[in-house]
């Protein structure tokens, strides 16, 4: 009996010990457990939403994150006491992973993302600022308007700008040639067109299993697509300073009515309430839709790379501005891509994070944006696309870029309120008037909560 108790006690102790074996004893609150600076080695975690596969986007067996890992290796060669681990984030679930990491104080040290979420992180007070970290030469190389786009409400600059992109429509020219309607596409000047001209083009190409375009309301991603279309009517969901919800206007209702009518007329793919932004990219690649809106040169690079790798059939692509009603200029959500550094509570680690962030976004690394056909943010890289027709055009239309209110701390909630209302619109559960009114009520409530 006694032996049995001793055996049981020993086994229980072993089980207890194994239970706690997996638990780390290293929690400095502000860094990953086990990722702290130990001795002379500084461990940095670098996360990002890789925008191309391989080192240049054209390698057959390239993977997302190859370039970022190479950048990290290059930095580590020059800084032997720094160890950097890169992790690629998926668009679906990546933002939530970062939020969980921040809440559990295991945030990365360096993150590549846009100001859409960057300002949200700044609002939580978890980002390092770069105002005092740049030499005169480094600051002088950054294009002024790009530097302004990473300025937070308190005047600090919360990230290093890396890339920018204008947002417009890509068009499958091959499908329009097959439909005998290529002359309906704008080709001159800034390639703008009115909604009437746009609808004529949609009507001409929407047949034989092909839809003119696809509207998106499956989740909060792709909200920029709907917002770009609304701007063509002079409508917007937020005031410029982000303090007021503004969809419930005659222009807003007109925009919503028109968007819903595209499905009824057969010009837009039905089922918009379940279609997500990645779905539309696949549909365009598979030539199931002829026009994809709310995209940029980065997406053009992706489609070209898919064709080069043999992932999709080859077809010709042309481009145009999002349509407008002839009286409003329209515009698109400016969505700069930047690299930010997080606070960790460890001075050496924070210094290394800032230094690495500057390394990722400058010199030859600043020019790497060409692999995703994004606009550079450095004056020293401004000749990157000389002679490239679409890149030159894309750069010229940057003047139509509009701040959609990313800087509002309620923005993430507002976009999460928008897509259910659009779902109600497309399923005809609500009228356009009711959608506009309900959106404004819900969005304003979120804005007011944070005042």
């Amino acid at each position, binding site marked *: 009996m006694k032996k049995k108790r001793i055996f049981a006690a020993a086994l*229980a102790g072993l089980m207890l010990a194994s239970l706690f074996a997996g638990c780390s004893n290293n929690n400095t609150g502000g860094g990953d457990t086990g990722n702290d600076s130990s001795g002379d080695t500084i461990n940095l975690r670098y996360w990002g939403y890789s925008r191309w596969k391989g080192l240049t986007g054209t390698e057959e067996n390239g993977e997302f994150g190859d370039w970022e890992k190479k950048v990290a290796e290059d930095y580590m060669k020059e800084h032997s006491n720094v160890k950097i681990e890169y992790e690629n984030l998926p668009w679906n679930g990546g933002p*939530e992973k970062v939020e969980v990491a921040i809440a559990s104080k295991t945030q990365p040290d360096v993150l590549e993302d846009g100001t859409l979420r960057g300002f949200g992180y700044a609002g939580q*007070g978890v980002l390092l600022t770069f105002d005092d970290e740049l030499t005169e030469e480094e600051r002088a190389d950054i294009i002024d308007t790009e530097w302004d786009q990473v300025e937070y409400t308190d005047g600090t600059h919360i990230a290093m700008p890396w890339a920018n992109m204008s947002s417009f429509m890509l068009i499958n020219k091959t499908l329009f040639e097959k439909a005998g309607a290529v002359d309906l596409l704008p080709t001159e000047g800034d390639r703008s067109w009115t909604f009437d001209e746009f609808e004529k083009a949609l009507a001409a190409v929407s047949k034989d299993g092909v839809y003119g375009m696809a509207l998106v309301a499956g*989740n*909060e991603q792709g909200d920029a697509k709907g917002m770009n279309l609304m701007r063509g009517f002079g409508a917007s969901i937020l005031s410029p300073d982000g303090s007021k919800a503004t969809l419930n206007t005659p222009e807003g209702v007109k925009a919503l009515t028109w968007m819903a009518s595209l499905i009824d007329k057969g010009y837009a793919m039905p089922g918009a309430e*379940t279609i997500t932004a990645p779905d539309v990219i696949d549909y365009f690649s598979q030539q199931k839709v002829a026009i994809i809106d709310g995209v940029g040169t980065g997406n053009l690079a992706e489609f070209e790379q898919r064709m080069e790798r043999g992932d999709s059939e080859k077809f010709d692509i042309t481009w145009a501005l999002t349509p407008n009603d002839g009286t409003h200029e329209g515009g698109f959500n400016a969505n700069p891509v930047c690299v930010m550094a997080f606070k960790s509570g460890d001075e050496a680690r924070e210094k290394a994070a800032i230094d690495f962030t500057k390394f990722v976004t400058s010199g030859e690394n600043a020019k790497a944006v060409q692999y995703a056909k994004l606009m550079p943010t450095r004056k020293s890289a401004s000749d990157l696309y000389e002679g490239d027709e679409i890149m030159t055009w894309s750069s010229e239309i940057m003047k139509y870029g509009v701040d959609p209110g990313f800087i509002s701390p309620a923005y*993430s909630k507002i976009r999460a309120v928008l897509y259910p209302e659009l779902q109600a619109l497309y399923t005809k559960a609500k009228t356009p008037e009711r959608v506009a009114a309900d959106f404004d009520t819900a969005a304003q409530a979120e804005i007011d909560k944070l005042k």
Partner: protein
Amino acid sequence: MKKTPGAIAAPSFFRTAHFKENLSGYLFILPGLIFFVIFTVIPFIEAFILSLQRYNPRGSTFIGFENYATLFATDNFWKSFGNTFLFVVIIVPVTMIIALFVSSRIMDFSTRLQTVFRAAFYLPVVMSVVSISLVWKVLLNYNYGVLNYFVKALGGTPVNWLGNEKTVIPVLSLIVVTFSLGQPIILFLAALNGIDRSYYEAADVDGASWFMKFRKITLPLLRPTTLYVLVTTTINAFQTFAIINLMTGGGPNYASSTLLYQIYKQAFTFREFGIASAEGVILFFCVAVFGVAQFIFVRPKD
């Protein structure tokens, strides 16, 4: 306490024969108990405390039951609350009935054939829910899905399975049932194989029909297993999340949003950890009430 002269003091609990006999048992459950306390009880207490606060990474503020009041005043909360119960009401009885029926049918098969059926029904259990969800999403695609292909081929009108407020919950529920059947079938089969055959032989002698044998012999003897399957299936149905997140995002227009999905959105999209914790506490009490009710009404009568 006054001692009666001559009385012998009762030994402390730790010196009793009961404790000494069961000491090894206590030692064996000690790691599990510690695990339960550290990873379930303490987090629940912390979540309750957080539910009484307005969360801020730089320092939360105590606001009492304001988060609960905010939730109760929100239409989306009640919609999610109702949807959660709808999932439970569909998933639990359908799973129980199918599992019981399949188990009672294959019970009479040879051992080899039983193994084949067990493996077939258990396979979805071991597959990743992400893979299952993505495959179903493709099958149910309104424009290009296989299901609507057959509907059109039969002359019907394509159905927006995941985009229609009326069909989204039944469709998602049935998908959940497909990968929830495995474990109940295994458990029911094991329990059925443990029932003494002589009961059924005696019933056959008395001329009992299949249904009478099922009602008077099988069901009562299966009660302990039924209770376990009922409780675990109910808990899982309350926590339906992955397929909603992957297939519908809670839509269309919150028609498939559940309490757990809202907890996820509040916490990780809106950073409202206080409100998410309040929803978590509410979900806990809903599951607890159901669990206790099931124990009271379904537990085996001694």
